[in-house]
């Protein structure tokens, strides 16, 4: 928060530096005009909903969402969450989903970026194909994979049977044990390209001279990667992992379309559960309380995100 830009003073060199905050705001009043439209839109659609969610979480609101009939219940909604069995199950699912998706997407994306870093014939085409899953709609992706996992006519099951590995096609997404891993595979399919793009751009910033110097000094490929390349990528890696973690924590479409949280809540994660509580069972208060808890968790993650980003910025200004 203490990043002060020298260049920003470009047109205001004559402004006295040590004045009160109000004075400063007044002097810079024209600058706010540029950000004002963005801020107004954000206020309507962000600040208001956040206030509203916190408010709702302390009330019991009737199913039809008639706000004038809501009853104040204090922390009852929060108590209801923490004492329910589903909460712990869903939390465990969410952790599995977020950690596995993030770690594997990042690892696969990073490895693909490294493999694509060197120029070879067809590299552009290869890169384009690998990125496509990230561009297409998650709804389309969910249906494609639902068909691939189909318990009677799915292609994976058919291949396994044709190769005599199994007697009959397995039930990937109708079985409590396999549903979450199966959905994670779909999620990674959509997400590793993002990590790949970020890491490919990061790799371009690693100075060639350093790598060549290390090679002359006799460092092997692994040593060059570990001691030269990797330290250079620590910042972009942090940002990528945080963005992936947040996106995964907030996933909705894939589990919602493919299984709707089932069977027996085995693929419910926080977001799908909140959605079902609110719009399925119309327990608005409990859903709002869940949202507030989620909000607190995300603010914590957000703190690290901002720190990683301002680390970048500080480096850049210093350079």
């Amino acid at each position: 928060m203490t990043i002060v830009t020298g260049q920003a003073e470009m047109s205001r060199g004559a402004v006295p530096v040590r004045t009160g905050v109000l004075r400063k705001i007044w002097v810079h009043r024209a600058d706010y005009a540029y950000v004002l439209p963005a801020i107004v839109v954000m206020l309507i659609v962000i600040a208001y909903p956040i206030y509203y969610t916190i408010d709702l979480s302390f009330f019991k609101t009737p199913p039809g969402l008639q706000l004038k009939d809501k009853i104040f219940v204090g922390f009852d909604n929060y108590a209801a969450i923490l004492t329910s069995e589903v909460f712990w199950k869903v939390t465990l699912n969410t952790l599995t989903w977020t950690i596995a998706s993030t770690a594997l997407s990042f690892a696969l994306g990073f490895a693909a970026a490294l493999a694509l870093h060197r120029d070879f014939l067809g590299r552009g085409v290869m890169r384009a194909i690998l990125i496509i899953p990230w561009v297409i709609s998650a709804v389309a992706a969910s249906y494609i994979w639902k068909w691939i996992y189909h318990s009677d006519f799915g292609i994976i099951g058919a291949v396994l049977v044709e190769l005599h590995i199994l007697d009959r096609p397995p039930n990937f997404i109708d079985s409590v044990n396999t549903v979450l891993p199966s959905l994670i595979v779909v999620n990674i399919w959509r997400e590793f390209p993002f990590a790949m793009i970020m890491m490919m751009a990061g790799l371009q910033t690693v100075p060639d001279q350093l790598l060549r110097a290390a090679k002359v000094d006799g460092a092997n490929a692994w040593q060059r990667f570990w001691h030269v390349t990797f330290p250079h990528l620590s910042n972009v890696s942090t940002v990528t992992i945080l963005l992936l973690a947040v996106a995964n924590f907030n996933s909705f479409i894939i589990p919602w379309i493919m299984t709707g949280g089932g069977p027996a809540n085995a693929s419910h994660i926080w977001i799908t559960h909140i959605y079902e509580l609110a719009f399925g069972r119309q327990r608005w208060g409990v859903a709002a309380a869940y949202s507030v808890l989620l909000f607190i968790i995300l603010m914590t993650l957000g703190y690290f995100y901002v720190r990683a980003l301002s680390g970048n910025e500080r480096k850049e200004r210093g350079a």
Partner: protein
Amino acid sequence: MSATTETSPSRASGRRRFDGWRWAGRIFLVIMLFYTAVPMIWMLITSIKSGFAAMQFPPQWWPDEPTLASYQKLLDPQNSVGQDFLRFFWNSLFVSTITTILSVSVAVPAAYAFSRFSFPGRNFLFFSVLLRNMFPAVIFLVPLFILMRLLGLVNTPGSLILTYMTFGLPLAIWLLKGFYDNIPIQLEQAARIDGATRLRAFVTIVMPLSVPGIIATAIYSFIGAWNEYIYAYTFLNKNDQLTLPIGIQRFFSENTTDFPGLMAASFLMSVPVVVLFLVLQRYFVRALTEGAVKH
């Protein structure tokens, strides 16, 4: 660095291991290509089967009688399925285009201000804009639904455009700020010395230079709006207002066994964004990484 100088294996063994890594990379890429492409290829193969041919075990790896019937059905305005599909397609196109135009016009001045000026609260505002991206739609869903009801926007494209703008904006601002940071400030200073106002310097010098950034931001907004599901699912329930993701879901719930039709619809839905992306991917990839990676 120090560790790399301590160990010095013979050159020959260094080179041999190097090749090993290279081969590992190639094999890995082939596996990833397989993982990425097989689902998409299977989608295409299924979409040219008849409903009967798709439901066979073991499956026909290549359809005995390839047919474009599913595509014809979806794109035929005379047919009721085709009517719906084309209407959803048009709704998606309308919402995505308007969202893109509005987002870019709001994001350009904001990103420029964040990049160039220092005003009190600049960093606070910038990071609060970014933080917006951290929150899932679900948090905003109920209050926004109430807000839209208040504004009379439920079941209109307006509700989607307003919401899409806000989740598109943070990223648009972030992407564009990266571009403005890379435009040398001296260019504007020269113009200012020649007597141009700040606004004029912005419009005549900076705007033309940032066209690649604006293109990238526009693609990003468009793809985001085109693929959005959860708000559309909540705000719209009239058949003639639905966008494609919801339309396809409805199609599937009504024709649970028509997998060729579903795959053809998924394919047609992906075509615009994939084409847009492939044509303009240079801008897109560059912009996305500009914010996180500094050259």
